[in-house]
């Protein structure tokens, strides 16, 4: 199968799984923005998804895409280290036009994964997972919160400064990852040329800033709200 047996094929898999994850981020952002306008509307989405079969199916597909992206990252990075050879340059200098993030995608990806675990522990574990093992309420911060009461989770976690700072660092790492990832993915699947490379780069920065700025806005909104109440 050329998608696994050739370098370009493996990169196509990497690119398509990455673009899929970006589409999910846009969907996730749309949900979060809802919470700013109405806690009820947000909880409605949480109930709608909950642990229903279609939400589980969606989560499974998402986890699959994420798994493919990670396995490919490990595989490609390992191969690239081999191709670089055993002896390293004594002096190396990053040329202009080469972004720092483009040369550190694997490390930035690891940072993103690290914060993702925190996010899972705080939200997914208490919401979808708790429901799956038969709970409808969980104790968070000394209070019982319903597993589909997403708004209460947001209010609780984003009232803690360390959580807010951790999430903001997460968004910066994600932004760095996306600013190289999106245009690079489109270049890999061949949708680029001398003119479009610059257009894709602009689109990439707009999308990355929209996603990470949007998440950052929601996080800060709830932190400030917690300070005022």
């Amino acid at each position: 199968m050329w998608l696994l047996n050739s370098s370009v094929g493996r990169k196509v898999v990497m690119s398509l799984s990455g673009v899929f994850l970006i589409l999910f981020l846009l969907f996730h952002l749309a949900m979060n923005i809802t919470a700013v306008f109405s806690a009820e509307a947000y909880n409605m989405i949480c109930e709608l998804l909950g642990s229903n079969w279609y939400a589980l199916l969606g989560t499974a597909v998402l986890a699959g895409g994420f798994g493919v992206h990670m396995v490919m990252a490990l595989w490609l990075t390992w191969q690239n280290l081999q191709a670089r050879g055993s002896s390293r340059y004594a002096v190396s200098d990053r040329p202009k036009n080469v972004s720092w993030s483009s040369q550190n995608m694997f490390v930035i990806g690891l940072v993103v994964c690290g914060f993702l675990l925190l996010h899972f522990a705080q939200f997914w574990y208490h919401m979808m997972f708790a429901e799956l093992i038969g709970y409808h309420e969980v104790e968070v911060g000394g209070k019982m919160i319903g597993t589909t009461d997403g708004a209460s989770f947001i209010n609780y976690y984003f009232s803690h400064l360390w959580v807010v700072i951790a999430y903001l660092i997460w968004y910066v790492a994600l932004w760095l990852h996306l600013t190289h990832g999106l245009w690079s993915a489109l270049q890999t699947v061949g949708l680029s040329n001398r003119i479009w490379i610059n257009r894709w780069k602009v689109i990439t920065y707009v999308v990355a800033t929209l996603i990470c700025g949007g998440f950052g806005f929601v996080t800060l909104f709830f932190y400030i709200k917690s300070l005022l109440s």
Partner: protein
Amino acid sequence: MDKDINIKLKVWRQRGPKERGHFESYSLKGISQGSSFLEMLDVLNEQLVSEGKEPITFDHDCREGICGMCSLYINGHPHGPDTEITTCQLHMRKFEDGAEITVEPWRSAGFPVIRDLMVDRYAYDKIIQAGGFVSVNTGGVPDANAIPIPKRDAEEAMDAAACIGCGACAAACKNGSAMLFVSAKVSQLSLLPQGKVEAARRAQAMIAKMDELGFGNCTNTRACEAECPKGVSISHIARLNREFIKANLAD
């Protein structure tokens, strides 16, 4: 105005492919800034020979930037700190008096060191042999108006054909990827009517050979493009990807 400068050199010395290499330091006095980098190395070698020491081995041939033989990694850049030139076109006026210059060979699994600063770049020839040609005799040079070719395609093919196969792309790449080279060698043919016929097969054969020889996977860092002495653009890599994907979908 060009002056005479004193410099310190840190040069990679390695007696053979299997030997362990190390850096050795040399001082040179009164080097004219008007001399080329390779002339400076010639001066150093003269000095070493007169002291009864082994001269430094390095690749060079035409010394006018078209053969692709010279291959030094100078102060963290293939072909040195200047842009769009080969090592032989680098002049000592790019360095100040008292400068410390580190000279290393290309370091990539695809380019094993033969001795000192000379590496084996036969891998690139093997990639060309896998498909970088037109199989039929296309005759002599036809009249310019015999086969109409859009100006844009002709320019793109010519830009790709500027590649001299020096290996700076793979040497600069943190992934040791040869994609810029392969894409240039594919584009220079596939954009033109004589080369278009075999475009799909060529892309597949050359990528397969590149992978087999252990070059890495391109992650679009653009370091190759920045260091290429001929300014070959990564838009050729997008074209190669496109052709390779199309060819495999058609199979």
